[in-house]
């Protein structure tokens, strides 16, 4: 029997009153210490709000850290793998960061708020590491996790819903751009970012204005079929669009206990985030070595035959197990059965064919399914509307 490992009381986000009101089926989960809905009413319908209309997700538990000071840029360049200097003011960059062994600790987004003023959004708690990284730099690090409430507003009508709410000319905001609006006597920040691979925005306000934001947004979006969505729907959307998640698709390197279980950015298919031309960043020496000597694993997106999600499956090449699945879902829009796998090198080249050994249970009866699968090139869902500027009106 699996006993719950932690009995800590979960926190409520600034949107809790509104989220609870909408959470018809009362299915809650623990996200980084906050109680958040797994589903509001129906996972599939919630998912389709992201792909067809506007879906709203309470993002408040994301960890937010402010990095300010003369050395802020140098600090982030040393911490993260990508070249932070290329992120302009009012722009956002996705990155990962590694430990000295070149193993990924977490991924996240960096918002450049000013010349020497950044905000880092991470999935994992990171204050400890951020403070260690600050030694030798003239920066101040502030944990703003509880000072900012945030909603992800995603889907084809998201721009229209937000514009309707009063974010004038939002359609001109480019992907990974951000902008500030006046909202109820305060500042509201909106960035064209998200975790769904669709046209979408993230909206940031003070916790005091959270409920007002929710109410105004749902009023404005009513005509555009706005719906809240929970973690389960988000999981389908992110798998469909090829986004990996810390703690699911890789073990955060500094939490790893067993040797060899962490993964490098190369092994997670994120080499495009690694700028080895930078003179120094955490993991650089190890990553240079890995580049020279080869990686141990390859991240592969698999298109699996049938409609049974290949969760926790072994990937077989003949009789030999060459990898395991970390995330899997039936993706409704792409109408594909997608799995993320970690394959032993040199396996995993585009087009390679393997067999997913899927185990599932029906009424206490375990069944083993051998589903052929194929390594595909890039995410299966990647619509034009995701990047199009001005955003396509609906």
């Amino acid at each position: 029997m699996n006993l719950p490992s932690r009995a800590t009381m979960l926190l409520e986000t600034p949107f809790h009153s509104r989220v609870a009101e909408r959470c018809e089926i009362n299915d809650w989960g623990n996200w980084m210490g906050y109680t958040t809905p797994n589903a509001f009413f129906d996972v599939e319908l919630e998912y389709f709000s992201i792909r067809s209309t506007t879906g709203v997700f309470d993002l408040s538990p994301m960890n937010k850290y402010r990095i300010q000071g003369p050395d802020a840029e140098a600090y982030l360049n040393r911490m993260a793998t990508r070249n932070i200097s290329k992120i302009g003011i009012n722009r956002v960059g996705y990155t990962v960061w590694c430990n000295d062994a070149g193993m990924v600790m977490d991924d996240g987004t960096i918002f450049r708020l000013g010349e020497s003023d950044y905000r880092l959004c991470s999935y994992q708690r990171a204050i400890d590491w951020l403070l260690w990284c600050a030694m030798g730099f003239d920066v101040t690090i502030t944990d703003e996790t509880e000072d900012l409430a945030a909603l992800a507003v995603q889907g084809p009508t998201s721009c229209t819903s937000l514009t309707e709410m009063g974010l004038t000319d939002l359609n001109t905001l480019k992907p990974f751009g951000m902008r500030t609006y006046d909202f109820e006597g305060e500042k509201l920040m909106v960035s064209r970012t998200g975790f769904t691979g669709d046209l979408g925005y993230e909206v940031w306000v003070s916790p005091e204005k959270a409920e007002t934001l929710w109410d105004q947004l749902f009023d404005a979006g009513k005509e555009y079929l706005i719906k809240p969505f929970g973690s389960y729907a988000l999981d389908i959307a992110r798998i469909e669009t090829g986004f990996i998640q810390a703690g699911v698709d890789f073990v955060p390197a500094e939490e790893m206990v067993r040797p060899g279980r962490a993964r490098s950015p190369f092994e997670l298919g994120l080499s495009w985030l690694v700028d080895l031309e930078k003179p120094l960043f955490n993991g650089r020496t190890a990553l240079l070595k890995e580049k020279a000597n080869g990686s141990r694993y390859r991240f592969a997106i698999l298109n699996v035959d049938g409609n049974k999600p290949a969760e926790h499956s072994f990937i077989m090449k003949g009789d030999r197990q060459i990898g395991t699945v970390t995330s899997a879902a039936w993706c409704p829009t792409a109408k594909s059965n997608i799995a993320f796998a970690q394959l032993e090198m040199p396996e995993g080249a585009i087009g390679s064919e393997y067999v997913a050994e899927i185990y599932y249970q029906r009424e206490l009866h375990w069944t083993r399914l051998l589903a052929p699968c194929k390594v595909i090139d890039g995410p299966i869902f990647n619509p034009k509307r995701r990047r199009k500027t001005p955003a396509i009106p609906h």
Partner: protein
Amino acid sequence: MTDFDAIIIGAGHNGLVCASYLAKAGKKVLVLESRAVPGGCAATHEFAPGFNVSSCAQWLYQLSPKVVSDLKLPQHGLVYAAEGLATIALDDTGDHLHLQGDSASGGGVSIEDQKAYALFRKKMRKYAKLMKTAYDTRPPKLVEHDLHDKMTFAKLGLGMKLLGKDDMSDLMRLILINIFDVMKETFQSPKLQAALALDAVIGTPMGPRSPNTVFTYLHRFMGEVLGFEGATQVKGGMGTLGVALSNAATDLGAVVRYDTSVASIDKTHDRVTGVTLTSGEQLTAKLIVSSADPKTTFKSLLGYQHMETGLARRIEQIRFKSGTVKVHLALSGLPTFTGLDPSALGQRLVIAPSLNALESAFNPLKYDESSERPVMDISIPTIHDPSLAPNGQHVLSAIVQYAPLNPKGGWEALRAPFMTAVIAELTRYAPDIASLITAQELLTPADLADTFGMTGGNWHHGELTMDQVLMTRPATGISQYQTGIDGLYLCGAGSHPGGGLMGLAGKNSAQEIIRQGELA
């Protein structure tokens, strides 16, 4: 083209030893020293007009004989004023304990204790001999076995085997407990117990009940297998050793520049390329070898921002505490120690009445306070070397414990009361001493840190504890004098095998640099 093959930061004893070995191998070596004199902790200074004293280390008890002969130190001026000195544990009633070689006498030591003492030393010699196998070379790595490391492990393994089953299992037991328990189970005499335990805690921020104190005892005992039977006093004070080392290095072709402070170690991309002096002058070399302690090297000279976070964190986490103070007294005449023949005043005198007295002296250090009744290791060097003081007058030098680096209220408030406590303690044994004092000097851990550039005032450049020795000294991943940063090596006491005027860190580092072919 670089200016030098190697630039050594610091002309402390390890820096000079390393420079000498590299120069001997035909390398072009420059040593940079911020002070005006060589030797680092092997230094002599005039603390009052006409009164000279060994500034930091006062006894030589474990200088590697291989270093002495390889570098021909006697030819370069190293002269001993006295060798094989006894240790006398002072008693306030005059019943002093004499320890010389394997014999213990006086101080109420029983026949059983005398036998036990000889046996104990025999066993410690076996253990120290085993440790010497590891001390004589770079520490072996546990994971990436190369041939050299395998040889070291094989020698250690064979040595363990040769200890015999009983001694081997006893070593495994002892090394993890503390000197208090070992003394209690071995001897009855409180004075004998405490005199030996003092050796385990001196130069450390530990008390006799602290774990790791058996290891520190063995570290100090290393001298016995290196050929030192008791303490040795260097003629002219410890500075003579520094000068001899500097002469040796210079004779072998190394250049030593004094009054030259390094402001930073320069780095481009992954490689260290040279140093910038406080004057602004820049010097380049194929290798920079730092004898400064790891924190000074990585934090102050290289800068944490110029290395990966994990390395910076491991350096930041090295413990550098100290509880050690140096006291220097100028005396108008020889003090009278109750019950002690004046001829014995040239021996090593210790004040450590009992294990509990030692532990009680240690307790306040935990709370950044100082001992009410300090313990000490005393030298009156003018007995064997009258040249250190004006005619007929004397110098008393003492290594005193415990006082913190940063006492509550600051050292300005503690300096006078702590000196009073030291003199009060001395007065218990030498009632006339206060009347003879004409000048005095107290070097606090903060003073020692500032003067000798030792973080925390710790003379080992990082505490000698089981988690900070061998392959984890100074920190995991940077154990074999290499730093993970190309072009930067370490050669100071912060590296294996630690401090205490052994010269082994400097020698091993130079040998490792040559073995790696870095300067080939």
